[in-house]
């Protein structure tokens, strides 16, 4: 059992609080991503789990043991910072065997483990080749193999794909995810790349300025962000935010955004209960805004198209509504061009409402 648990963990460096009373449980066999902007404390968290930093307060468990006092090697974890280049003079086999030799394992035991690892990584057929005789994708898999060959209880990965080009990164993402499922090893993966986290993780924990913001499945984080920070951090192009004031008129609840109003009556129970002040922020994902030539609903509002960005299967419309800039995304290109007027309609069921002061989601 390699469950990892953090209980009220705090790490201070002088006057700076890098990690602030963080509690978190990573289940056995789970793939957990720690996601956040640079400097948010995610790497510090990982280093505390690895034993490279000592928490100022709080407890860290691996399995059923408190590991605060254990050295990194006693914790039986593997920390991978990035997939290092392979030793060019060694064959793939020797590269994979290297970490095992360091552990002083018997020769036939090493052979068995290397062959098994190679099998899983689909690199059995290239074991006798040197790094310059294999493809870039294969080289990355060998590097991955070298990182995981000794089978620790927990893998800790710190932005391992950051330095790869986009294509190879997408490829390794899939490989890593597939392998983790197959090996069923508890994995904690640190990244600032929200797409990487969403694509790979069973659950994502999002941290900002050392404080946990939300811990949920990728779907949960994307469709039900708990606050404005999470909503803005996850998703690309990012969610649109519009400052609005709640007003009641003729028994209806409206969000007044300035140039247009949105009827929120259907949510008045939920919002009314939670909300004390009338200052809110509306959040709408670009794909939840419909762009049309004509008004299609009483709530449709007019906008000016500033730029049209075709990005392959999808098209982004950059529009302005008065002073408000919004981005809409459609799967089908429309007959609407920069400089023209268009009508926008927001899918109410996908609308987000945040408290402007606290940032908490109200809807």
């Amino acid at each position, binding site marked *: 059992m390699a469950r990892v648990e953090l209980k009220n963990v705090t790490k201070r460096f002088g006057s700076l609080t890098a990690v602030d009373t963080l509690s978190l449980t990573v289940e056995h066999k789970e793939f957990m991503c720690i996601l956040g902007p640079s400097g948010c404390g995610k790497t510090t968290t990982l280093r505390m789990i690895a034993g490279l930093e000592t928490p100022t307060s709080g407890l860290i468990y691996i399995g059923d043991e408190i590991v605060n006092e254990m050295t990194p090697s006693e914790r039986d974890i593997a920390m991978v910072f990035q997939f290092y280049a392979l030793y060019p003079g060694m064959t793939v086999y020797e590269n994979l065997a290297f970490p095992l030799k360091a552990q002083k394992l018997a020769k036939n035991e090493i052979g068995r483990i290397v062959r098994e690892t190679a099998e899983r990584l689909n690199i059995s057929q290239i074991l006798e080749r040197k790094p310059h005789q294999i493809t870039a994708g294969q080289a990355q898999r060998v590097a991955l193999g070298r990182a995981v060959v000794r089978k620790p209880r927990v893998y800790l990965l710190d932005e391992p794909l950051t330095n790869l080009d986009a294509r190879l990164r*997408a490829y390794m993402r899939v490989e890593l995810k597939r392998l983790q499922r197959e090996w069923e090893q508890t994995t904690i993966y640190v990244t600032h790349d929200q797409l990487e986290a969403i*694509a790979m993780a069973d659950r994502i924990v999002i941290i900002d300025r050392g404080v946990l913001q939300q811990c949920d499945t990728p779907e949960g984080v994307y469709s039900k962000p708990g606050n404005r920070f999470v909503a803005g951090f996850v998703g690309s192009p990012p969610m649109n935010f519009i400052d609005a004031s709640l007003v009641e008129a003729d028994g209806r609840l409206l969000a007044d955004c300035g140039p247009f109003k949105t009827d929120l009556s259907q949510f008045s129970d939920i919002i009314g209960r939670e909300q004390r002040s009338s200052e809110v922020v509306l959040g709408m994902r670009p794909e939840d805004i419909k762009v049309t030539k004509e008004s299609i609903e009483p709530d449709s509002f007019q906008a000016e198209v500033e730029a049209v960005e075709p990005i*392959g*299967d999808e098209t982004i419309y*950059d529009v302005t509504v008065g002073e408000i800039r919004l981005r809409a995304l459609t799967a089908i290109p429309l007959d609407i061009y920069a400089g023209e007027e268009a009508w926008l309609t927001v899918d109410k069921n996908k609308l987000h409402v945040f408290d402007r002061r606290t940032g908490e989601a109200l809807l």
Partner: protein
Amino acid sequence: MARVLLENVTLEKGILCPVHSLTLEVRDKEFVSLLAPSGSGKTTTLRIVAGLDRPEKGSVWIGDEEVGDMTPAERDVAMIFQTYALYPHVSVRDNLASPLKVRKTPETEIDRSVKEVAEVLHIEDLLDKRPVTLSGGEMQRVAIGRALIRKPRVYLMDEPLTNLDAKLRVELRAEMKRLQKELGQTTIYATHDEVEALAMSNRIAVLNQGRLIQYDAPEAIYTHPKNTFVARFVGTPAMNMIPCSLEEKHGRKILQAGAFEYDITDFAEAVQGKATGDELVLGVRPAHVELHSKPPVDGGIQASVYVVEPMGRMTIVDVKVGENVFKVKVPHLFEGKPGDSVWISLDPRSVHIFDRKTGEAIA
């Protein structure tokens, strides 16, 4: 008039990334991207237009002049690089003003221009700060501002957004597109990022190893890639490419891929007319593969789920058909899990066929 014309431009000796017999016309006010993997001659091409490198053969025209003998300054172009070459110790205001000061522009006019440019780029608040205190995005805006301010005939941009984080890149992309249109300046923009090229350009010139492969509008590059290189390079996730051979079966013409066959009787004649042999490649974009949980009426191709990557508004599902992996892009959530049986069908209007030997598109 600032049309740019390169005629049979060749530069092969003594540089890392040669250019071979390149002919390219950029119309007045046009935004053209040079799209290529790194090391393909994009920067060399820009440097030749700027006058920083001299071609061995061929000529370069800006407006109606042949500029081969002109110095960079005489050509009246502005080059913007990946790294922001700002003066670190003087204010943003002075950084912006420096190109005009060099030209001995009157103070009042400099002030006016600085204000104007700062407003367009939303950097009014930064004018009194020094570059060292700015974020990457802010610095790049200032660098762009410094190029904008003297209103050259042509902008040459060399991956100006590469060093910025993903969110800022999306932001600045739209902004630069809007700006370029507003200012109506001819722009040549080098990038290795296909999404950037698709989103911003009027036309895209795809280069490979110093040669022009395809020059077309973004939509055309995406929907009608000229060969396998362009097809693979443009589009995320990349187009699925399955080697296959043209065969006859029960009076029908099929593409035999081993694990499955695909009927092309309806346009087999066109294919045979253009192909050099029977060895072909079937290409289909992930968005044009349909995924079914039950066998569709027309049969479909049986597959099994390999890896599932949720991406927020969509999901990328890797499915295995025999040894071939197809990437499928499905809108919204995908409920299946690895190992599940599924069926795929390929939208015949969106299937590409390439000659395996030459790589050329034939249907």
